[in-house]
């Protein structure tokens, strides 16, 4: 059985490698410089945008896998340099984004977990707040951006606010759901032992609802990491989203692809950390 499982894992890894090779191969073929096709009619707008050389095809603006590899390597060798406000290492940019996400996420958790507790424990509060949650939850977090910029007047704090607002809903809803779903018999145990409300909240309700709360946090972090790129594209200044936008203006597709890869990897790590935390608090019934 174990051997079979191992072989399955091995075969899956081989297949992944094969798919990777195929993608890189196709990519390589598609970006081969095409010799002697420089006279095709080119939309002048497009030419202006991507540069004449690229538009006429003598050298594609689309980098080859090797180009991207070289760029990635260059970034990894020196991720934390700072050369002026518009030229910072990709590691620095990722750190900015990560910092905003974690700050916004932490603030959201500070609000969502206690409020979710209240909603989960009191049917009155639940009914009173439900319409607000239902209306605000589906709003794209970026729609808040102008409002945030206008009221806060600080682009860095505004993007943190946007992260806050997008990560608050899943945590709020999951906490309320988890707290409301705590088994009556566990609460009765606590009542027959004359346990006070605070000890009951921390020793019974919180551990009972913890797996559901952690699921909400995992969803929230995922959404926050999606949103931060867009938010930073809007407000500019620093961060991986700004980096991507800046490289688009520089027309450095290799840098953009590198950033995409790194955004994916950081997102993966965030998700795995939350999954690991969730596993710590789950209990078998």
């Amino acid at each position, binding site marked *: 059985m174990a051997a079979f499982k191992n072989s399955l894992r091995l075969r899956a890894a081989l297949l992944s490698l094969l798919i990777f090779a195929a993608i890189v191969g196709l990519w390589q073929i598609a970006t081969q410089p095409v010799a002697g096709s420089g006279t095709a009619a080119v939309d002048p707008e497009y030419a202006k945008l991507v540069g004449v050389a690229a538009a006429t095809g003598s050298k594609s603006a689309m980098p080859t896998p090797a180009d991207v590899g070289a760029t990635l390597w260059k970034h990894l060798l020196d991720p934390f340099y700072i050369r002026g406000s518009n030229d910072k290492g990709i590691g620095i940019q990722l750190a900015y984004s990560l910092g905003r996400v974690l700050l916004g996420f932490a603030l959201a958790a500070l609000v969502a977990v206690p409020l979710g507790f209240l909603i989960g424990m009191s049917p009155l509060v639940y009914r009173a707040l439900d319409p607000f949650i239902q209306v605000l939850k589906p709003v794209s977090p970026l729609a808040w951006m102008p409002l945030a910029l206008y009221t806060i007047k600080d682009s860095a704090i505004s993007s943190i606010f946007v992260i806050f607002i997008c990560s608050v809903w899943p945590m709020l809803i999951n906490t309320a759901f988890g707290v409301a779903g705590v088994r009556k018999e566990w609460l009765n145990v606590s009542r027959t*032992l004359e346990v006070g409300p605070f000890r009951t909240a921390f020793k019974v309700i919180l551990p009972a609802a913890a797996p559901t709360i952690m699921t909400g946090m995992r969803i929230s972090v995922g959404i926050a990491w999606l949103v931060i790129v867009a938010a930073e594209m809007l407000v500019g200044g620093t961060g991986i989203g700004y980096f991507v936008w800046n490289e688009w203006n520089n027309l450095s597709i290799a840098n953009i692809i590198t950033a995409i890869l790194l955004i994916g990897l950081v997102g993966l790590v965030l998700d795995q950390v939350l999954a690991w935390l969730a596993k710590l*608090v789950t209990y*078998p019934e």
Partner: protein
Amino acid sequence: MQQQQRPLISVEGLSRRFGDSGQTPVFEDLWFGVDRAEFCCLIGHSGCGKTTILNVLAGLDQPTEGAVIVDNREIDGPSLDRAVIFQGHALLPWLTVMGNIAFAVTSRWPSWDRAKVRDHAAKFIELVGLTGAEGKRPAQLSGGMKQRVGIARALSIQPKMLLMDEPFSALDALTRGMLQDEVLRICAATNQTVFMITHDVDEAILLADRIVLMTNGPGAKIAEIVVNTMPRNERHRNDLHRHPQYYAIRNHLVEFLVNRSRAFDQEIAEHGYDPRRLKLVKPGLAAVNPPAEVVPLTTGRRQ
């Protein structure tokens, strides 16, 4: 102040109705008591309201009418003096065996330090024979082991009385027998007052000093109270059926569960009924002289 001799637990005119006032109550106008150091069993069919009564006694549920007086004071909520062993074992699944019992112990004695709590908890884990399983989570335990943890948790707070809701009904016969013996031994040793729900006739005869018979709901009543005239020291699980009084008591209980519990209104019409002055019956004594006629053995439950 009513200084007349009240039992430790005194149930006075208890009714409980769910829903609006048009509905028939689950049970109505119950009057009975449990004396200090007595083992009292409540027997009745599924759904007649036994758990509801226990919840009221525990202070987890409020009666629609009437009151429960414990130690001459009306109860107004749960208390550490009344430990509950729940129908489902109700262990906290994220805590270990030790953690579950320690939770109860710290609730009882908040000022105790960790070591003292653990020592105390360990004593009760040993009492129910679970030494070695302290670090296990409930999910890793068998049904019988979980029930033992529930018992240890209830006993560890050294309550004045134990309220048990069918603590053994989910167990196989062998485990059930072992646990019954243990509970009997522990209760005798600590002089516990016990109120226990069951629908197992033999369990009631083995454990109880008095057996409260409840009719079928809705509108359930207490029909009568059967005194178990078999002395505690003559009740042994393995030769219970050899005791001269056994079949008489058993037949009386089975007869009640099979026939009388659902036709009790008819009985009231014929013989009258005062819920405040329940009949105390001693079928065992009647059997000692004239030989008991043996009713064919049926189980306590309706088929």
